[in-house]
């Protein structure tokens, strides 16, 4: 039985909300502001052209209706001056769109100096994030970034084509599958570069958690392949980096039992500091280190509550059609145990 995909939120039939999670016109980063500048200019030009078409059309339809008197109008064939005018003027208008476009395109095409490198790997149907410059951090579905820092995203996919998009920050980039070198690095990847916004700005427009979503059809649960971005102050980010890839502190008996259950999950999942790290190669499932820290589960679709986690563990494909994780891997008692282990948290939740 297919469950509704998302937690039921506040359903508002009609709302005007420019700060909605996926809105593209908010202009929080410099890149999205540049895009909106080009877009604004283009919109004005198209509005002008629209009226240049609509007004003559409407006037014509009103003024030249057939009067049913059997007469035939003057049969003229063309007008060279008009033809030249309405060929040349559009070319000029297009230049007004083209030149700013190319300026912005080349401005954001190179990797900025001192950029923080983040690797983004698409999987069916979750996002893997790696921070090669900050130790060995591997995380999934929740992207933590420092404010006012240029980021160089290296984007690729482990299976089919996905696309990485955070609408409020700017445009998207396809995550293409690639062959791999001997050391596991991708032969080819796409680059996406931009500067993150300031936390102060971020707070004004929709909080500090931004939504992203996959935008390239990638299979049954393409609609449910979301992720969230958290913008931190530089200090907060330092502290996040310190704790992001630390092993869980198992202190209760319930959690200990959960640790035993998790041993069965290590073929597909990894948690830092556990034997699961010894198993080499790319794993099918997301890295679950600090899972308790994440606001959402299921790639940004459900809140990370005990109940949602239990529903997932019972039958993942009822939450996400086609999910590669089979149902019935754990019984009810094991669900309670492993949930308690997984939801151990090292830093406060956001």
């Amino acid at each position, binding site marked *: 039985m297919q469950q*509704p*995909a*998302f*937690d*039921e*939120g506040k*359903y508002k039939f009609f709302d005007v909300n420019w700060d*909605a*999670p*996926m809105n*593209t016109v908010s202009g929080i980063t410099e890149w999205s502001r*540049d*895009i909106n500048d*080009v*877009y604004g200019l*283009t919109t004005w030009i*198209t509005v002008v*052209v*629209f009226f240049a*078409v609509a007004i003559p059309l409407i006037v*014509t*339809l009103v003024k*030249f*209706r*057939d*009067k049913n008197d059997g*007469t*035939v*109008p*003057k*049969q*003229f064939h*063309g*007008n060279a001056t008009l*033809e030249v005018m309405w060929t040349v003027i*559009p070319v000029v208008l*297009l230049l007004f*769109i*083209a030149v*700013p*476009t190319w300026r912005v*395109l*080349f401005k954001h*095409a190179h990797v900025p100096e001192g950029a923080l490198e983040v690797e983004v790997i698409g999987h*069916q149907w979750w996002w893997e994030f790696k921070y090669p410059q900050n130790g060995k951090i591997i995380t999934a579905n929740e992207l933590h970034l420092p404010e006012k820092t240029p980021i160089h995203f290296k984007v690729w996919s482990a299976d*089919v*084509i996905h*696309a990485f998009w955070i609408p409020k920050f700017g*445009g*998207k*980039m396809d995550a*293409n599958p690639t062959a791999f070198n001997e050391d596991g690095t991708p032969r080819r990847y796409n680059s996406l570069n931009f500067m993150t916004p300031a936390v102060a700005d971020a707070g004004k427009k929709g909080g500090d958690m931004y939504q992203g*979503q996959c*935008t*390239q059809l990638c*299979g*049954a*649960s393409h*609609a449910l392949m979301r992720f969230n971005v958290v913008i931190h102050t530089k200090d907060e980010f330092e502290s996040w980096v310190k704790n992001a890839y630390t092993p869980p502190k198992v202190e209760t008996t319930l959690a200990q039992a959960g640790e035993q259950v998790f041993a069965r999950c290590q073929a597909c999942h990894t948690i830092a500091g556990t034997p699961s790290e010894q198993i080499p190669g790319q794993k099918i499932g997301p890295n679950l280190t600090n899972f308790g820290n994440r606001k959402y589960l299921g790639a940004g679709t459900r809140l990370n509550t005990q109940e949602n986690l239990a529903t997932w563990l019972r039958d993942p494909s009822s939450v996400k059609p*086609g999910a590669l994780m089979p149902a019935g891997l754990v019984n009810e008692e094991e669900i309670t145990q492993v949930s308690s282990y997984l939801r151990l948290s090292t830093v406060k939740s956001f």
Partner: protein
Amino acid sequence: MAKNLPKTGLISWLTTVDHKRIGILYALGSLFFLIVGGLEAILMRTQLIAPNSTFLTGDIYNGFVTMHGTTMIFLVVMPLSAAFFNYLVPLMIGAPDVAFPRLNALSYWIWLFGACLLNTSFLVQQIPAVGWFAYANLTEKQFNPTHSVDFWVLGVQVVGLASLIASINFFVTIINMRCKGMTLLKMPLFVWTTLVTQVLLFLSLPVITVALVMVSFDRTFGTGFFNPGAGGQVVMWQHLFWIFGHPEVYILILPAMGIVSEILATFARKPLFGYTVMVYSSCAIGFLGFAVWAHHMFTTGLGPWATALFSAATMLIAVPTGVKIFNWISTLWGGHIRFTTASLFAISFVAMFTLGGLSGIMHSSPVIDTQHQASYFVVAHFHYVLYGGAVMGLFGGIYYWYPKVTGRIMNETIGKLQFWLYMIGFNLTFFPMHFLGLEGMPRRIYTYASDQNWNFWNFCATMGAYVTAIGGALFFVNMFASLKFGKKASDDPWDGRTLEWSIASPPPEYNFAKLPEVTQLDDWWHKKYTHDGKRLTPPKQPVVDPKTIHLPNQSFWPIVLAGGITCIASGFVVPANGLYISIAGVALTVASTFGWAYEEP
């Protein structure tokens, strides 16, 4: 044998080589699939009416997305355009039939069988769910192990073959079978847009043929064309697909542009404004159409230089497209405009296509496109040009030429009601999609959360779909009821300008008792009116004994050969013994070819 086939009844339709009958067959087939594609859309919109719906989820929804797009493009707009090419081109150029009548029939049956092959996927519940453009490597066996993708690949391959064969036929017909005096620049604009469309078809279809074979081989024989692990590249599929795919969109729009040009000139009672420019701009669109494909790939990591070049070419192609809009308005300006259902659809084409063209300009800028790509903004754009444009134009054509084909006029009251329901429904569905795109709603998602601010516009869009459905139902009622109850039509009920209005409605099987001789563009109009608008009496068609006119014989080889080709394709989608079925198909195809070659035409 061919000489003794019955001239009436089912067999006469199955063995027909008459371009007019083939045109009717294409029209009926495509209108059937319009209902199929429309139902697919209604079901999708029903799923999206509210957030978190579980009506159609996961790959079932993705299957509908795929089939809706594939059906509307290959099984509705292309064959419906072909219906017009078939029926009208020989009449408009004063020819007795197309260059290769049996080849013409072959195209139809290949198309019909290919359409059935594609839709068999529903019957065996292996619906392709990879989108109408089937990006590799989602199409690899690893990610789609059932035959669903094979149904799509072979279905498109087969219907593509039908178009390829027809394009050669029509190109030769238009260039080589014009009546005396009809130089190229005296042909009706519809014949010109048809000509350019055929060139686009026979040059672009081979490219997708290769790409489809590559996917098929990856899935069936384990080659690695689109498998990065084997050295292949997924982006190669996108390049090959869009080198076909972009000319394809001009293939979809040019026929409707030609139809609209004819309708507007007739109902304004004035010649098409700037005929020569319209001809050259159609050719320019065709030529430039091959230079812009990568604007569908702005976010695939081409690099800024390639991106900038393709963006420039895309903006450039807007110019010949845009001048047409002004030419159409100028055709109406100064005319005596009659508002019939046909002219309403043609006028709405001008308006809706403009809107679609303007949103296209927006995403011709890769900077803007980086936000628009794969969002509902693009869905809005292409529906405005393909539905508000091509489909509306084609409906106009149906209302306009129905009297010529059937001898009756479609009911104008129901027609105008359908038109308004379509306009309201269409705009209610697709205008809000611009907003949904700006609000970040991606394409091809089967559901969405309730806090995304997408609820209201999705609801509107679904309501629009239901309104359109009512209009669609009215259309079919009108089309069939008018056959019996419609007002009888004269030879020239609209006071038209082109040669098809100079013969009876419906025309005799041989078309022209005596092949016409023309001296100018819109020759038929000039036989009815002097240059200052005084009425003349046009010459009537001479009376001839039909038995003295030799017509090509009917033949059953086209339908049999089409069966052979489909048999070859079927081998790829059956659960077992596919190889033997394909081999049997090859044998039938080869045998039919010989039977055809040695038959008396």
